[in-house]
Every structure is written in C-alpha cells, then in structure tokens.
C-alpha cells in the first residue's frame, strides 16, 4: 500500500518540519520550504503536525494510489486533479485504490504538499524524514522522487469517506503579496546608509538561481562601509546575506548551518511561507519591522493554528 510515481514532476521530495539538533555537527535542517502548509495538511488529516508529506514544486508529479487513502493538498495551487477531475485543496479527500493524482498549471505559489493519513513510511535519519538533497540524506533514498518509485504508507485509513468541510485556508497568506517583512540582521550596521535605503525602497527580483538552499536576488547592489572579512557564524532559514559583489542571497530550508557573508537582514518566520511560494522572476520588496512585532505575529499565528486544530478535532468528532 502506497503511491507509485508515474512522472516525478520538477522536484518532488519527502519533507517534514526539519532535522533539528545536529546543526552543531554542520547537519543541515532541511524540511518543508512552507511549513505552514505542511502543518495545516497534517492537521486536516489528524496527523502529528510534524509528519512528513510530499513537497511538489511548480510542475507537480503524476502518481497512482495503490490503496484507498485519505489525503489533503495544501500550499501553492498547482491545479491538482484526481482522474482528471479538479480536487479541492485544504480539505480531507478520500481517494480510491487506482486513482491517479496529477497536477496542472501553477495558479498561485509554486510548492504544494500532498499529505496522507498517518504519513509515509520512510526511515528517519538523525530524527527526521526530511530529504537533504545536496547531502543525499533522508527522505526517499536521499533524493527527489523518480518514475516508478513506490512510497509506502504508514497506515490504512478506515474512517468516513465524505467530508463537507474545508479548513485552514483563511490563515494562509495571500500569495500575490510581494511585501516580505524582515528584522535587522547582525551586520545591518555594516552597510552604507544609501544601501540600507535602497534595500527597503527598491524592489528585488528572485533570479533563476533559486532552489531549496537559497534564492539569489537581482536588483540594487549593496555596499558596506565595513570591509573586513567576517568570521563564519550561524545563519538560518530567512537569513539575507550579501557576498562581496553586493547581490543579496536569501537562505531557505536547505541552508548551510553557518556562513561567512554579512547578514543584512532576516526574514521573519511568519513570512517564510510567502517567500517559499515565490518563483524565479517574482519581485519582492522588504519592509523593516521590530523583533517584538515579528514574535507577536508568530505567536498570533501559533494561536490561530491551535484554534484550527481544535476546530478540526471537533469535526472528526
């Protein structure tokens, strides 16, 4: 019992909420680019929030269910279909053995999450099922899915088949928004006043060099008045670092644990979903907020998630 891949799509990987606790050994965190979508998908199925799902990128896969299953699709809208019939996102959907899931055009965002009841049966590596592509570790054989892969389920679903509710979409951000909020990075003060002004007043675009590790941006080049080489120190998901030629790079889920480039700013956790769903070519403008505001936004999101979880628990009865 599981799914069989007919076409892998552009990049389909198994991801949970990430591999924590080993960054001191240089082990990359990985995990879903859009953990909000992943967690809502798990919630819809009554799974543990951190359960692994299939992260599908831009051009989704085509796959067959080799057993009846309860699924949910969340995140960016890649026009999912079951046997050619549009599938409603953000709700539990019962699919029959032999059903074919496929995707069409990306109408919003670029990453979608296929969650299944109780998750996929893949081994944990250092406590996580996430795929770390460059390291060839975790997930399904440490790599993106290929044609003819068979990914087994953890459990068989035996509950109700009909669901007349959907949930969670309301706390998902509007993906057409191009404004990404940041707080000051540790080396913010190393940049010239002109560069700081440009950073917040002029848009950047996501270049074609954009993957799970990071997005290289195009736009205004940023200058420092402090030109000393920096000693390597920790970087994280959302860190915006500026190499010597002045073009910023935003670090994403497969970010290295430490880096040596000045960190001008840090995308707030609550806006990582927005960033994760942006494709190459998209414009971004950065807006500066305070750490207190960023933490308040995250706390509010966490409270909404808790409410959603209670609502869903009641629906399952």
């Amino acid at each position, binding site marked *: 019992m599981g799914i069989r891949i007919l076409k892998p799509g552009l990049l389909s990987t198994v991801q949970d909420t990430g591999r*924590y*606790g*080993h*960054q*001191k*050994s*240089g*082990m*990359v965190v990985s995990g879903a680019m859009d953990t909000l979508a992943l967690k809502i998908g798990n919630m819809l199925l009554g799974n543990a929030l951190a359960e692994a799902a299939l992260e599908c990128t831009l051009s989704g896969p085509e796959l067959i269910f080799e057993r009846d299953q309860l699924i949910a699709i969340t995140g960016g809208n890649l026009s999912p279909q079951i046997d050619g019939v549009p599938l409603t996102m953000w709700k539990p959907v019962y699919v029959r053995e032999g059903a074919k899931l496929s995707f069409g055009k990306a109408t919003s965002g670029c990453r979608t999450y296929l969650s299944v009841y109780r998750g996929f049966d893949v081994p944990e*590596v*250092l406590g996580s099922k996430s795929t770390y592509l*460059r*390291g*060839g*570790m975790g997930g399904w054989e440490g790599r993106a899915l290929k044609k003819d892969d068979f990914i087994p389920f953890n459990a068989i679903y035996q509950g109700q088949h009909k669901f007349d509710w959907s949930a969670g979409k309301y706390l998902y951000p509007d993906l057409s928004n191009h404004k990404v909020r940041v*707080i000051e*990075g*540790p080396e913010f003060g190393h940049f010239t006043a002109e560069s700081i002004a440009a950073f917040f007043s002029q848009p950047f675009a996501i270049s074609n*060099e954009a993957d799970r*590790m990071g997005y290289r941006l195009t736009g205004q080049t940023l200058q420092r008045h402090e030109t000393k*080489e920096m*000693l*390597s*120190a*920790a*970087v*994280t998901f*959302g*860190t915006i670092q500026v*190499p*010597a*030629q002045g073009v910023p790079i935003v670090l994403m889920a497969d970010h*290295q*644990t*430490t*880096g*040596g480039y000045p*960190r001008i700013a*840090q*995308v*707030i*956790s609550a806006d990582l979903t927005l960033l994760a769903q942006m494709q190459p070519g998209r414009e971004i403008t950065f807006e500066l907020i305070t*750490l*207190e505001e*960023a*933490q308040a936004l*995250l*706390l509010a999101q*966490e409270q909404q998630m808790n409410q959603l979880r209670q609502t869903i628990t009641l629906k399952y009865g």
Partner: protein
Amino acid sequence: MFAFLQATSNHMQMSNITDPNIVQYYPLGDAAIVLQFGDEISKDINAMILNVAAWLDEYTFEGFVEYVPAFTSITIYYEPWVVRYSEVLSMLKEMIEDMEENENPEPPGTVTIPVYYGGASGPDLNHVADFHQMSVDEVIAMHTQPEYLVYMIGFAPGFPYLGGMDERLATPRQESPRAKVPKGSVGIAGSQTGVYPLETPGGWQVIGQTPLELFDLSKEEPALLRAGQKIRFSPITEEEFLKIKADHGH
C-alpha cells in the same frame, strides 16, 4: 520553567570566570539569540564557547531547540511561541554572570588528513601561489606544516573550521561562490582553511582534495571531526589519493 538557573551554583569546578562585559547579545531573526565573545579567533574564546555549549547540554530550558558554536559566537535557537527573546536574553545573561570556567576535557588525539594538492583537485592552488608571490610547493609546505585546531563544525555536515593556518596564506574568498565544489576539497577563505565534506556551492579558494569521508551516516558518529580536535594535513600523490578512495569503497 527556568529550572536550570538554580542548578548553576553547584556546577563546574572553577578557576577563571568569563568576563560578562565582553559578551554581546543580539538576535538572529525571531527564533535565535547570538552570544558573541569579541571578534578574534582565540583558543580562550573557543573554550568559553564550548563551556556555554556544555552548560546548555546539561541545563536546557523550555523552548530550547539547539545551539551552534562558531569561532567567536554561539547561536541558540528557541521556539518563540514558547519563550520570548527578552526572557531568553535575561536567562542567558544570568547564566554568563554565574558561569565559571569548566575543566577542559581530555583533548582528543591528532587526526592526519591526507591531501592531494593542485591539479584538477586544487583549481585555485596557482591563484593562491600567485596572490602571495610564492611557488606552489611553498604554499603546500606552509599549509601542511602546522597542527590545526578544529574550532567549530559548520556550513555543511562535518565541515571543520580550523585555526592555526599560517597568516601568510590568507587569501580572500572568491567574489561569487562556485555553484559546485567537489566532496573532500581543501580550501582557504580569508585567514581560514577547511575541508568540504560533500559537494556543495562555496566561495573558498580550493587548493587540494582529501580522499577521506568527513561525514558518513553509516557510522554511529557521522562527523569524523569535532570541535576541540587537532588535525594535520599530509601531502599525497594523485595515485595515493585514488588508492585511498578505492580502499574506502567510494
């Protein structure tokens, strides 16, 4: 909630006390705090950082996720919906003020890392030699002479940041990182030298390559090196490089 604070007084037999005034605290985003101890690479600062790490190993706090030691800093990740920055900050300040230096554990032995310098394995060896107006052999001799200290592991799984490189080899990073640097590459960036454990993008000047595996998940402890370890580089020929690689089945 912060039970570990009460536990500090009977911890660690003491000599030197960390001067709380040299520690700077600042956020890295909304889910991490950095403790920075000056801006120079030093064995004393490394010892202080490893003390903070050892202390966190023993007395965790609610909302604690993990820590990442670096040359002059230690970054502590936390869950901001469990504990706020201001709370973590005051906890850590109290910890530093109460902190006394740990007895250093027995230092691990010296690990020898064989390196094939130059050729296709070291595309920037000539650049480094030209930059310093030295011969390639002088660069190799200068790079293999010292005993290096592993200050931190970071950037990629098992990647050691080493102290002890001869300052005369210091070379700026490449202006734009390479998209792919092969596994085992040995490089220089500024006054740092290190080894890439797996293929990854990077901006270091690559001078050679080791056939050893620095991160191997089939081993119980995947990272070959850890902070506090000493290493030495030893030059090998291309034939020796290929033989060691073949013997290890990679």
